């Protein structure tokens, strides 16, 4: 009887204990890059998780129950936009039953709204052009100067959801931008000797990086986005690579190496596997690490070539 009393009392007490401390804001992002920036800006006030791993292709995911579950608990949902995640994010949002993160709510952030996209199609698009993105190229996080804009938008969202921590978040964001801008100078200096280097990439995902760091992308392994290369296209590509003396074939880890290896044999260009995201390779834990790694790999590969 005594035990029953104590136990029931404890349980009853637990029923009414409401945590008075503020739990960190639960943030869910679609990519690890966004998660990394959220950590820089949000610091101890946020707990952030990415729905994709850095080694995964964010275009093609399924709305799995595990993703739905994470989204159902999130206070803030952040995506890259521009059609990158259109194959799965809408389905996750509908199934998440979370009014806080529905498009239009304070807890939903499409980071692309303040970004100036490249390669917006000027003519009407249709699927004969492959997996074309009608709103522009979505791989904009690979231009570090867009990182500043991303951090501003994330800070704004966080401040509207955590008004008490506005000052601290603002400070974090400004500090991050300062450190980051300094790092951008370093990376640009590192890449300067190789400005104008001609490369080809597997998928049209390096436009923003190339523009910022002076690489010249002369062709793609895919004749159209998402379409596998045909022998005719490969022939043309090999001829182009020889003509332009392309030095590198840049590809993401989730593509198959067989065609790039073939091109390398035919033209002497080197295959370079580069991760497009934080977490895409060992040691890339922050947004800083990503560009450190990319510029380091590129400079090493390009220096050997010449």
């Amino acid at each position: 009887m005594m035990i029953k009393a104590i136990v029931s009392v404890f349980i009853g007490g637990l029923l009414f204990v409401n945590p008075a401390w503020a739990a960190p804001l639960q943030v869910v992002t679609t990519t690890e890059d966004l998660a990394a920036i959220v950590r820089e800006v949000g610091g101890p006030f946020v707990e952030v998780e990415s729905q994709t791993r850095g080694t995964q292709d964010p275009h093609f995911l399924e709305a799995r129950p595990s993703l739905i579950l994470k989204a159902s608990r999130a206070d803030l949902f952040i995506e890259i936009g521009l059609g990158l995640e259109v194959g799965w994010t809408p389905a996750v949002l509908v199934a998440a039953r979370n009014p806080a993160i529905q498009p239009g709510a304070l807890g939903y952030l499409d980071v692309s709204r303040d970004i100036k996209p490249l390669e917006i199609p000027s003519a009407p698009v249709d699927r004969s052009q492959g997996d074309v993105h009608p709103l522009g190229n979505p791989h904009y996080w690979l231009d570090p100067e867009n990182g500043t804009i991303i951090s501003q938008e994330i800070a704004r969202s966080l401040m509207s959801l955590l008004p008490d921590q506005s000052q601290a978040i603002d400070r974090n964001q400004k500090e991050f931008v300062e450190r980051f801008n300094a790092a951008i100078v370093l990376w640009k200096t590192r890449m300067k000797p190789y400005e104008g280097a001609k490369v080809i990439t597997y998928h049209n995902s390096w436009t923003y990086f190339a523009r910022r760091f002076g690489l010249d992308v002369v062709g793609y392994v895919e004749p159209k986005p998402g379409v596998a290369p045909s022998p005719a296209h490969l022939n043309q590509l090999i001829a182009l690579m020889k003509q332009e003396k392309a030095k590198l074939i840049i590809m993401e880890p989730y593509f198959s190496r067989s065609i790039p290896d073939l091109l390398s044999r035919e033209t002497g260009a080197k295959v370079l596997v580069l991760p497009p995201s934080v977490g895409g390779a060992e040691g890339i834990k922050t947004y800083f690490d990503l560009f450190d790694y990319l510029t380091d790999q590129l400079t090493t590969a390009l220096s050997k070539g010449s």
Partner: protein
Amino acid sequence: MLEMLSIPFMRQAVLAGLILAAMLAYLGIHVVRRRIVFVDLAIAQLSAVGVALAMLLDQDPIGFSLVFTMVGAAFLSLPAYEQRIPQEAIMGIVYAVASAVSILIIAKMPHGEADILNLFFGNILAVTDGQIGLMALTFGSVGLVHLIFAKRLMPIPVPTESGSTFLFKAMSWNLLFYLTLAVVIAVAIRTAGVLLVFSDLIIPAAVALLFAERLRPLVLLSAATGVLSNLAGLYASYRFDFPSGPSIVASLGVFLALAMIGKSVALTIFSRSDKSGPK
């Protein structure tokens, strides 16, 4: 009596009390008739385990305890060992083990203390609008289910002989009943606490069973008893400055006592006037 209702939290407590009394009174008829009086104790303790786990993992207590309770109730609905081990023993074991588990969980928690004595009987005075809404929603749904499937749920299920040709013959309706009971208990515990839920279930039903036999009069009488004693208990706690939960339980007890006395008096009077015709 009416000035009590001018205070907002008393109004909410009365409303919560009425909703609880009505729902539990009806389910109490089932529970007593099916002779599973100790089941709701076991179920209540299971839902407590669910709440403890929720607190430990920093999750939503209602959701956790709902699922836990429903799973537990589903297991309890299985008639498998009924012939060998009496049901009361099984309920007792479940209660003991669940209590032990919840103690173990509390032991792991960094902060588990709260208003201890006050909350043994729940804290109906602290009920929020959200809780009232949730109770109304879930009890309404459970009531609807019972209304629609009344025919299936009412007759007392006889323990099935082994070897029925179809695996889910009568078990599905038994299971449905246990699940609805689990939902109601899990939600009610939040406001009323273990002992008040138990009392609200059993005592009004007992009073009703003293005087009626058919379903409709039973339910009406049980609900009336529950509602009146909840009101009386709340009024007593307001007037005489007693904690609310124990007051309600006490008033339930008083009603039962009065009912039992009334019944024996009536029996004596009626048996004496047996030959003198109807009154």
